[in-house]
């Protein structure tokens, strides 16, 4: 049952990611990306990370994608037009993607990396909070609030009309 859910979500993630990069209309790309993010959330849950799975839906599929769709509809974006010189660009992209795949996959093969899930694994929200608010990560956590504030002020300053 778990295996069916895992591989179905993985296939759905890959197919909708293909739609994201293959689609000319950005609105459809955004909706396909939401499908990718939700199926990834299922996979996070199956890997024993309920907190990350919930964050994925709330923050990514909820907040970030709504922001993307808001801007897409605010700017009334049209379909992408055909343009010359797409072939070279596509070749460069495929080469980059293949190099990424080869480097990481080659690295795992060379190191004879065996990924075995450990038996005792607890990533519940309570355990996550204990790690996140421990002395180890507390200052980093507080620094993220400053980052969010800076992003807020920056976004408002960048997007407002020039006086």
């Amino acid at each position, binding site marked *: 049952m*778990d295996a069916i859910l*895992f591989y179905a979500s*993985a296939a759905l*993630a*890959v197919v909708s*990611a*293909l739609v994201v*990069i293959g689609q000319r209309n950005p609105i459809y*790309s*955004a909706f396909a990306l939401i499908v*990718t*993010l939700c199926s*990834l959330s299922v*996979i*996070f849950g*199956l*890997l*024993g*990370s309920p907190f*990350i799975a919930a*964050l994925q839906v709330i*923050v*990514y599929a909820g907040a*970030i994608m709504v*922001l*993307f769709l808001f*801007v897409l509809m605010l*700017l009334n*974006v049209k379909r*992408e*037009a055909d*343009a010359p010189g797409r072939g070279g*660009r596509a070749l*460069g*992209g*495929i080469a*980059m*993607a*293949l190099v*990424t*795949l080869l480097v990481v996959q080659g690295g*795992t093969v060379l190191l004879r990396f065996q*990924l075995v*899930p*450990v038996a005792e*694994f607890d*990533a519940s929200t309570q*355990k*996550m909070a204990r*790690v*996140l608010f421990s002395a180890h990560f507390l200052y*980093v956590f507080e620094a*993220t609030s400053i*980052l*969010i504030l800076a*992003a807020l002020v*920056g976004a*408002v300053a*960048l*997007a407002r009309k020039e006086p």
Partner: protein
Amino acid sequence: MEHPAFVQHAVLLSLVLFGLGTLGVFLRRNVITVLMCVELMLNGVNLAFVAFNRAAPGGTLDGQVLVFFVMVVAAAEAAVGLAIVIALHRHKDTLDVDAFSVMKG
């Protein structure tokens, strides 16, 4: 509990998602779609973090914490990036990446 091969296959899936995101950044010409492809790459990295954390000995949760911070930075990046896109659209009235070449050497 779960199948032992899940971790290995999750790493493979994260590689595929990262590769597709890279491909999209090169292929697409709309600035907003390029930003969405960057989000796709970030999600591939997040999946790799979660998968490797699942296989890490000693019950550490550092991978999960890193995913949390990646999500915070992605939210900040999306907010600032889309504000820049709005400012660019106001200047040039287009979203084509080739139109923004003012600083090209």
